[in-house]
Structure formats: structure tokens, C-alpha cells
């Protein structure tokens, strides 16, 4: 058994080279919940520092394995080849499952983060989401982030929100659920946490 910091991204999420994105998505969510600050299971099992490091790695693993180009590069680096997932993905069998909220929304025209920037220079996630006709419950279902946490995220409730690492992760999931570019959304969100950076 390897130490977790010696695992590659596949080992970290306990998926294989062939695993499609939908399964990676599930694995990612279950591990993130497991090591979440509020998780009773990992309560005091690992230190705060280890927890942040671990979540960061899980986040990186997820980002890499969910992005075709990044995954190809990663596979080449680690295994010297492209995983079999690539060929089945090319057939479009399980494409974009995680973006399903977008198709449930009203408009099909492109939604741009910039259009929802408020006077204070920050994006209103609520207006953005509502413009797409997507409910918080729907996002919660896709991202497995609890509704109160999503609300806190939309309201930038610094008391309820965890530290910046987590907020960043939540924002990424939020963006993906809506089919938006995570980086753009994070930028438009502004400072991630008042408590810690």
C-alpha cells in the first residue's frame, strides 16, 4: 500500500485508466465529502494541514482527469501512453454527463459570467443561475454539495463558508454543473474567503 502522497491521480481516486468521466465525478465527490472539514468520519483522523493538502490533491486529480487534454498529457507522463478511456470517449458514449444542468435550463444561448457582475465588481451567482432556470436543489444533486452550503456560497456568507481551498472547490463544481468555465467563475467571484487565504 502506497502512502497517499505517492499515489498517482488514478490511485488517489481509486479509478482506473479506463474509467469514464461520470464515474470519476462520483469518486471525486465521495472522497471530497469524506475529507470535508464537516465530515464526522475523518474527524480528527488527519490534521488540518494534511486535510487541506489532501483536498488540494484530490481537486488537482479531478481537474486533470476531467479535462481531455490534461488527461492525455498526464497519461503520457505517467504511463507513457494514452488510456483506453480516450477511445470510448471519442465515441461520445458518456460525454458531458456532468453538464446536464445546462440542458435543463431555459436558454441554449451562451451564458457569460461577465454579464452578471454587480456594482461591487463581483458576480451574482444567484442571478446567473436563475437566468439559466436552474434551482439550487438541482445543483446540489449534481455537485453533491448541500443546499445550505450552496446558499452560503451564493451569499458569500463568510461565517458558514469553509476556508478558501474548499470554496474554490465548491465554485469549480458549481461552474461545471452549469456548464461554465470554472476559472472564469472563480475570478468573477472575487476574494474566496474572508477568514483565510
Amino acid at each position, binding site marked *: 500500500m502506497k*502512502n497517499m502522497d505517492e499515489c498517482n491521480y488514478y490511485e488517489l481516486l481509486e479509478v482506473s485508466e479506463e474509467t469514464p468521466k461520470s464515474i470519476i465525478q462520483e469518486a471525486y465527490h465521495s472522497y471530497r465529502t469524506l475529507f470535508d472539514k464537516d465530515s*464526522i468520519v*475523518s474527524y480528527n483522523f488527519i490534521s488540518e494541514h494534511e486535510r487541506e493538502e489532501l483536498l488540494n490533491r484530490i481537486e488537482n486529480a479531478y481537474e486533470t482527469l476531467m479535462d481531455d487534454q490534461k488527461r492525455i498529457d498526464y497519461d503520457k507522463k505517467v504511463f507513457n501512453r494514452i488510456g483506453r478511456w480516450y477511445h470510448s470517449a471519442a465515441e461520445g458514449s458518456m460525454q458531458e454527463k456532468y453538464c446536464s444542468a445546462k440542458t435543463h435550463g431555459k436558454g441554449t444561448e451562451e451564458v457569460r459570467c461577465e454579464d452578471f457582475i454587480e456594482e461591487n465588481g463581483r458576480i451574482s451567482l444567484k442571478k446567473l443561475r436563475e437566468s439559466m432556470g436552474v434551482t439550487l436543489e438541482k445543483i446540489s444533486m449534481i455537485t453533491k454539495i448541500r443546499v445550505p452550503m450552496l446558499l452560503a456560497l451564493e451569499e458569500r456568507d463568510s461565517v458558514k463558508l469553509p476556508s478558501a481551498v474548499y470554496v474554490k472547490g465548491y465554485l469549480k463544481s458549481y461552474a461545471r454543473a452549469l456548464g461554465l468555465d470554472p476559472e472564469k467563475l472563480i475570478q468573477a467571484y472575487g476574494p474566496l474567503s474572508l477568514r483565510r487565504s
Partner: protein
Amino acid sequence: MTGMPEWQSMFKRCVIAVGGGKGGTGKSLLAANLGIALAELKQHVIVIDLDLGGANLHTCLGIRYPKITLGDFLQRKLTSIDKALLPSPIENLKLINGSNDPLEITSLPYAQKARLISQFKRLNADYIILDLGAGTSLNVLDFFLSADYGIVVATPEPTAIENVSLFIKCVMMRHLKILLKQLPIENLKNRIKDPRNLETIRTFRDLLRLIRSFEKETADKIESKLENFKLGLVMNNIREQSETKIGDSYKTMIHKCMGIPLDYLGRIYYDDKIPMAVKKIRPLLLEYPNTKAAHAIRLIAKRILGMDHSPFPLEQGNSLFDWKKKDKDTSPAVQEMPMGKPQKELPLGVRFYI
């Protein structure tokens, strides 16, 4: 086999320890009723109350005033441990009652512990179930590690989970320490004390990594032995549907963070009937045989029975606590080391060594 009389080898002699850190999580309840459930499955079972100072297993089994106790064996009033066996209301199930004598329980010297372990491992039964006390004292850890299978009991509360986590960490550290006595490594203490290492060694995995960096072969040997110890988890006092997932998640976490497999043996719902049975001094499985909790415990028993074929490392003589040999050995591989004062500021892993 090794010339053992046939009637003796008829028994499986599988030792199962029930522990897990916190008090009141249901260890005694499980030990007693698991014993009954296994006996109902036609197994010969002996349950031993090793909660030194908190003995109450007899009450869980419906026995009010046991006359003979483990204390009689420890004080050598009894020549062998089978003389301490008491009958129970259940066919095929016997009890060794715990000792509540304040004088003999506070500390159990190494020789006594060795005699006790070597004797209960040889008892004639299919399953020998040890009910352990709370906490992470050396006695508790050593009894736990002397078993072929260790069960930890937790409830879905942060305090119980925290204690079970600490318990598992202590068990692994103690295990590693014992293995290191059998496979000594030169200069290990100094290397651990090296300030550059002190910073990074927090878990038994870190320590193993340090050892691997200069003694790869020994590290491999130790690792495979560590992974050999089988652990199971029981979640008790479940009240809500949402709490049922905790067991699976906990299993995943232990596997991920410590690299050890943990069987999730089952969950027991909170049930008013349990305190009611306790008040009547009647075992749950006899008094309320059709409650959900009773069924859950029977299911756990079946899982354990089903494991027989492979997981139990029953190669005797190769076991971790081979006390029989060590009794005569002049340089015991497993010897009680004075722990010294706990050094609070050091991480758990290191505290065990210095």
C-alpha cells in the same frame, strides 16, 4: 498436523477481540450477543471478560453473581484458565468472568499477561471472544493484538469516531513496535530522534517509510505482517438513515489513510429494548430475539462464520503473540517496555518509541 490429539484439533480456536476506545459504545453488548449468535449457529463459544476494572459481561449474559473470576486465575488459585469457565443459560456458550478486584486490576504485569494470553488461546472452543475495556492502555492493545480478528465498535458521534480512530492508530503503532522487536533495526531510535525526521514522522506509515529508506527488505516484511492483522468495524446506536453510510465511509478512509483493510461487519440500530433487556439482566438475543438489533447481531455472526475459509490467519505458531515460546525465552521478542512519561508535544507515532 503436528501430532495434536484429534479431539483438540476439532476446534477452530479463533480468537475475536471486541474493542474500540470509548466506553458505552456497546462492546459488551456485542461480545455477549455475538457469542450467543455463534452458539446458536452450533459453534462452541467462550466469552472472556477482559475489561479489567469494568467487568460486566456476565450481566449482559444474564448471570448475576458469578462465583469464579479471572482474578482467581491471575492469583494462581486456579492452575489453568479452563478451571475458570462458567456455564451460561445458552448451550455451547461458556463465560470467563472478569475480575473486579481493585487490587489486581490496576496493572497486569507482563508475565501475568503472557500467561493469560497463552492460556486463552489454547482453550477448547471454536470462537473465543474477548470483551475489552475502554481506552488505549497497553493491556487493551495487547489483548486486541493477541486475537486472530479484531472488532472495533463505534457509534455515529464525533467522540466515538475520534476514539476509534485513536484506538486503531495505537493498535497499529503497538503492532509495529512488536514487529520491530522481532525484526530489530539498528540505530532506529536515533534516526527517529533526528530532528529532520521528528518533524515528518506522525503515523506508522511515516515510520515505515523511514525504515524503508534504509532497510527495504525488513520494511517489506513488516508491512506484509501489518496488513495481515484483520480488523472489522461495527457501527452501533444508529438512529437515522443518513448515519448508515458512516461505516462504509470509515472503511474507505482507513484503507486510504492507513493502507489497512477494514471489514464493515454491520450496523446495529438504536433500540429501546436493549436497555430494557439490560435492566432485566437478560441477554438481548434471548429476551427480544426478533428485534432489528438482534437480527443485526446474528447477521454479523454469520459474516464472521463465513470468513472462516480464508481470512483468519490461523497458522498457529506464526502468530504475533507467540507467548508459549516467549515464556521460556531469555530474550523475549515481545517484552513490556516502560513507556515513560508521555511526551505531550511529540506526535503519537514518536511518543510510542522514545
